[in-house]
């Protein structure tokens, strides 16, 4: 008999250990819930980490006001299923209160504005640690972020001055006003997430599976057609059979043409696919360093 864990069990165990460390080391930790599969997986892991007790984390949703209906429905169902507490930070409200300006121009989005609302929400509720579903394989800047990632009193990340992270000993010590971002699934890839979702039978928003939708074709990008997206001159509106690989703000989340209608088919597609998930996000395409710039300011 061999005592060995397979890779998904090892990743799961690692994540649960980190989630429990976050709980034990901080006074008011929360989970940043985006409605996407990574934060859904994170919630699932957090529930396991404290079963049979309820999850000891408030869920925080930073709402750009440009949501898929499915995301909000799913969110509310999840909150009631987990008997969790939900806090919504509204970007719309931050804009109305003049705390951040609405972006103008052709590629205007509320992506960057989210940072202001996020930091304000954390401060308002006194959260000193925010668990997120960020993964290192998503993007270059994320590839070197720590699991326990320090933020100064302005919420900023200093990528050149990160604390070394040794073994599984996490240092969450901080001064008043500072906080931590914690990434329990740092070492998971997109495929790992899907394999785990299949193994655990985690329900997902229908957006992740193939469906017919009125879409806007803009160059290589396919966006959902909605009141929030301003049509541009060369845009084409058409019905397409699509699914989403990531779910975020409706105005920047690109869809892919797909007939994958269940988890098995999605897994086959992910294995074959030659594009990274974030490759479809307009926010990252702006410049090579854009994710890093946003992260320095305090973005997710």
């Amino acid at each position, binding site marked *: 008999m061999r005592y060995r864990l397979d890779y998904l069990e090892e990743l799961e165990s690692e994540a*649960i250990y980190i989630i429990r460390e976050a709980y034990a080391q901080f006074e008011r930790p929360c989970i940043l819930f985006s409605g996407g599969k990574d934060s859904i997986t994170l919630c699932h892991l957090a529930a396991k980490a404290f079963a*049979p007790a309820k999850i000891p984390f408030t869920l925080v949703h930073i709402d750009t006001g440009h949501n898929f209906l499915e995301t909000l429905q799913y969110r509310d169902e999840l909150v009631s299923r987990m008997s969790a507490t939900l806090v919504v930070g509204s970007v719309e409200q931050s804009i109305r209160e003049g705390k951040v300006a609405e972006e103008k121009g052709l590629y205007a989005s509320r992506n960057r504005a989210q940072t202001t609302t996020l930091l304000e929400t954390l401060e308002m509720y006194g959260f000193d640690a925010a668990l997120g579903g960020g993964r290192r394989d998503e993007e270059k800047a994320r590839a070197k972020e720590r699991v326990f990632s320090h933020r100064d009193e302005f919420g900023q990340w200093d990528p050149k001055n990160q604390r070394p992270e040794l073994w599984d000993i996490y*240092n969450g010590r901080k001064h008043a006003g500072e906080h931590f971002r914690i990434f329990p699934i740092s*070492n998971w890839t997109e495929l790992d997430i899907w394999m785990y979702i299949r193994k655990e039978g985690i329900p997902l928003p229908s957006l992740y599976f193939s469906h017919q939708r009125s879409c806007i074709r803009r160059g290589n990008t396919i966006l959902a057609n909605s009141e929030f997206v301003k049509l541009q001159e060369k845009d084409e509106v058409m019905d397409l059979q699509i699914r989403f690989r990531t779910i975020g703000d409706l105005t920047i989340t690109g869809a892919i043409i797909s007939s994958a209608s269940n988890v098995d088919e999605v897994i086959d597609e992910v294995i074959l696919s030659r594009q990274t998930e974030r490759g479809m996000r307009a926010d990252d395409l702006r410049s090579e360093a854009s994710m890093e710039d946003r992260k320095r300011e305090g973005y997710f």
Partner: protein
Amino acid sequence: MQQQTMSEIKTILRFITAGSVDDGKSTLIGRLFYDADFIPEDQLEALRSASERKGLQATDLSLYTDGLRDERIQGITIDVAYRYFSTKNRKFIIADTPGHIQYTRNMVTAASSANLAIILIDARKGVTEQTRRHSYIASLLRINHVIVCINKMDLVEYNETRFQEIVKDYMDFASKMDIADIQCIPVSAIHGDNIVKRSDRMLWYQGATLLYTLENIHVVNDTNHLDLRIPVQTIIRSPEFPDFRGYAGKIVSGVLRVGDELTVLPSGLSSRVVGIDTPSGKVVEAFAPQTICISLDQDIDISRGDMLVRQQNLPEVTQEIDAMVCWFGISALKVGNKYILRHTTKEVKAIIKDLVYKVNLADLKREHEVSGFNTNDIGKIKLRVTSPVMCEPYRINMATGSFILIDEGTNHTVAAGIIV
């Protein structure tokens, strides 16, 4: 599920790459990903356009692992970047570490979670001070497997004699260290020889390619399954289940069974295990590195930082620690300095009693006349902690043999410690 044979389950292999600046680490990883078809199309496109902007003709594969903006501008790698790829039987986690002297701390950091190290040597330069330094760190952190890639073979006419010369040099010096398994591969990262595809320019080399070696290397199970150690992370209670009281933590070593009599350290109280919850449900037996939640037959006083063990197999409970440390701090480590020491899930205060010696990383000799350790120094110290820690030597148990030191003023992690 947990009792399948090794070939049936997909496991994780964590490795690091180390070498001096310009030995070709970034190119090697880029080549590995490129030839094995692990680079997604859009990232490849980004690589091509970045190479073009730099006025290069061929795609510069080294750009693939260069992450942050400053590094891209300076053209060097300055921190630890993580990469992932997967083959049928293994998921690989790579920590890409820099070669600069001042970044020893990053190599130590990356090495602390690796089971294998790839060490690069430039075939023209042979074994250098950096090679020795990196190999020493790998052995200090007990990385049991080292693959030495002798790179830029194209610049020495793919010459076998040169390769053998370097192998002999390396083996001569490595024999003084504690590395279980060393394999040497002649490669050319830039042209792809022996990375994923066998080289037809080095037919004299009979061994395997780098990728094949990574996929098939038999990783001795580094996990200690003999000595049961469970540092308690937190206690789980719930108003809905008033009778439930679970002790949550990770089995860092050993095997735990329902019915076991556990001793709590440092209190010495004991109680019997009546239930074990794992992420996959209730079990009668659990093992390292599973995270678990334990129910005991009696309520006894247990809190975070305590350790659950078996009475007949105890770790040392001590306030005096001898350790090798790698110093990361900006200001020097000196006798009399006080720090916070974090060991497993426990935090105590520590005072430095003695600096025994410093290792000269150039020749690996011990220097006994030391007044302080500066950033990136490695050496042996003695320290005393305010309350007992449950520990044992790192070579017997990595989890109970490791700690970090934290500066109380800045909260920075200033040292990695290895108990001897």
